[in-house]
């Protein structure tokens, strides 16, 4: 796969990621069941009447995509590709509640209209008056990775040069209650969570939006080269190492060439074993984790991709992310490995530009 470049990155998350000095100001959190994204002052970006109507995922995406385009100096992207696990969860829930509470009577269409999974990509297109290619991927855990892959294909096929790629997910009241009920979210008695050596299942749930401009050409604003992506729906634990080794081999790399590996440790004992298995391949690499900073959610890898971009650009690894003591004088190649509850395993390879 031919390389493309990540020419800007913007993120709204549980951390203060819209601010400066991101890598210096990361604070872990392990004692609550849910983590909320820090919201910017939307008034600077969105008319007040619209702020009230828009759900959190649309608002976060609106701001993050605005910054991503601005930082890359792009006014009209050649494509808009968005990944989301749960889509417009808040509006879906509101409409569903109305349907049930009012016994299918006296309904208004606003929440339904906004409940569609592609509302975010559609709203961005509408705001930019952008008629270009517009896709939305909704996978359990690989929505951003498919969006990046699609961007790579669009560029390779000569259909686009600068693409807005993003991922976004929001929390919703009832869905979070159901996640607690079904032990997707960690029981209160099992908190604080031990992200690296957990003996219990369940995760701390987060939310956020990350947007990037993926370009054909390296520019002054480039953060990283997006070298390759691999995605698989399911994997046996004992296949993990082969899955990773095959991917490295295809890219003419060995484990030693990978300076940092960003692993998706979530504090869910049963599924985190994949990361432990993966660690064994990389005795010399800096091993990093991040979900203690972002929470787990369907597009949590948007946050780690954003951090990886900053690590490559600033050549600095925040201590709060380190799993082991390995440090590197230069961070050239970063491998990201993620899955959610054993579904949708993905590998993303980024290189310093």
């Amino acid at each position, binding site marked *: *796969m031919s390389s493309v470049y990540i020419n800007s990155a913007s993120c709204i998350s549980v951390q203060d990621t819209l601010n400066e000095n991101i890598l210096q100001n990361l604070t872990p959190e392990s004692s609550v069941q849910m983590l909320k994204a820090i919201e910017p002052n939307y008034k600077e970006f969105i008319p007040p009447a619209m702020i009230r109507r828009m759900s959190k995922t649309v608002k976060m995406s609106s701001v993050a995509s605005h910054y991503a385009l601005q930082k890359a100096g792009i006014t009209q992207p050649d494509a808009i590709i968005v990944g989301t*696990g*749960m*889509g417009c969860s808040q509006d879906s829930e509101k*409409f*569903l*509640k109305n*349907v*049930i509470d009012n*016994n*299918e009577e006296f*309904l208004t*269409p606003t929440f*339904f*209209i906004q*409940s*569609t*999974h*592609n*509302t975010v*990509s*559609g*709203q961005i*297109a*509408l705001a*930019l*008056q952008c*008629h*270009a*290619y*517009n*896709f*939305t*991927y*909704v*996978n*359990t*855990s*690989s*929505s951003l990775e*498919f969006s990046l*892959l*699609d961007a790579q*294909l669009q560029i*390779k*096929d000569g259909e686009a040069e600068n693409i807005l790629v993003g991922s976004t997910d929001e929390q919703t009241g*009832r869905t979070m209650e*159901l*996640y607690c*009920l*079904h032990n*997707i979210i960690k029981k209160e008695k099992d908190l604080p969570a031990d992200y690296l050596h957990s003996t219990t299942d369940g995760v701390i749930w987060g939310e956020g939006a990350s947007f990037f401009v993926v370009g054909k050409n390296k520019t002054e604003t480039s953060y990283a080269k997006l070298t390759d992506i691999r*995605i*698989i*729906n*399911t*994997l046996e634990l004992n296949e993990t190492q082969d899955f990773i080794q095959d991917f490295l081999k295809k890219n003419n790399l060995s484990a030693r060439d990978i300076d940092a590996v960003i692993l998706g440790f979530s504090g869910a004992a049963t599924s985190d074993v994949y990361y432990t298995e993966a660690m064994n391949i990389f005795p010399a690499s800096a091993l990093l984790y991040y979900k203690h900073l972002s929470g787990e959610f*369907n597009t949590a890898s948007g946050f780690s991709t954003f951090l990886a971009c900053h690590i490559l650009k600033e050549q600095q690894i925040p201590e709060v992310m380190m799993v082991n003591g390995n440090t590197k004088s230069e961070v050239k190649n970063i491998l990201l490995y993620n899955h959610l509850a054993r*579904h*949708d395993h993905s590998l993303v390879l980024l290189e310093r530009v």
Partner: protein
Amino acid sequence: MSQKIAITGMGIISSIGNNVEENFISLQSGKHGISDIQMFETRHAGAIKTGEVKLSNEELIQKLQLDEDNNVTRTSLLGMVAAKEAIESAEISEINGYRTGLISSTSVGGMDITEKYFYSYENFPEKQKYIDAHDAGNSSLAIAGYLGLKGMVSTISTACSSAANAIMMGAKLIKNGVLDRVIVGGTDSLSKFTLNGFNTLMILTDSYNTPFDNDRKGLNLGEAAAFLVLESEEIVKKENKKVLAYLSGYGNANDAHHQTASSENGQGAFLAMQQALKISGLAKEDINYINVHGTATPNNDLSEGIAMIRIFGENQVPEFSSTKAFTGHTLAAAAGIEAVFSILAMQNGLIFPNLNFTTKMAEFDLTPVTELKKKDINHVLSNSFGFGGNCSTLIFSKS
């Protein structure tokens, strides 16, 4: 297109049949599938008609021989039926024998179960397994699991153009050598959520939908699933595969006009058709038949008609029909359903009729094909447009 993508298998379940053969018989005999709602609880039963698959979840589970402890929702059940038929029709015995993927699509995912137990899951411990099955991505994972597929699995959800985009992405993955083989399409079950959503938008007809008719009153919703198997030229040659048809062009564009309504000049539709023609390398005169989006809403048919005239020219629009009077609008699955119908049209040299049409629209001189018509068809253009301004066009060519 530098490489035409071979279609080697197809499968479908809709309100007019549980497989390709049954759908084909209904299309030929003019037997539509629009009926009163029987399969889910709603106060609109008896008032609003839909294209419902008259098999309960239990019957579908039985048909698929799933374990009793499964947590598969209706969207995935329908998807499994269609995907299985597609695999069988492509004569694939070893699903992971090549780098194989599944790009599916859905708009509702597991909503049919969620809306039943949304407030009461606490009281039904045995139903809590469905909490995991709500998200759209889960439906594709379930279908892939059922097929024993291990590889790239993804879901596209761009409302009513979803399956077209899944087919498009599948083609790109093969064209770029990322995959050798990919199952593409979509699935959507009916739900109270969707029915009420469209009802509040006031775009549902109280009767039978009449696409491209001057007096059209709106759409009937439907439920369905359909999948195609796309394979690389190398596999086709190596395995001497029978090719049902080729995907020769595709295009996606955004109308950027309104979250739900289409623009007056059909800009998104125009751009999607233009892009698909460009990629196919075909001239517009090469298109012998258009399977239009034709939802029978006042807004869609007008906008789509104008876009077709802009592309093909006044009095030069190829023969066209909407098959939504047969199946209803099956949302994320629609482009998959219509891909199967487009292939059947080419294979059998038949244009399936646009049912329920009586009066030409006042705004332009466009009359759909209203009777089953014999015609040699080499290239079909198929449109699908969705909320969020999402407009997609596919072009299929005879093998």
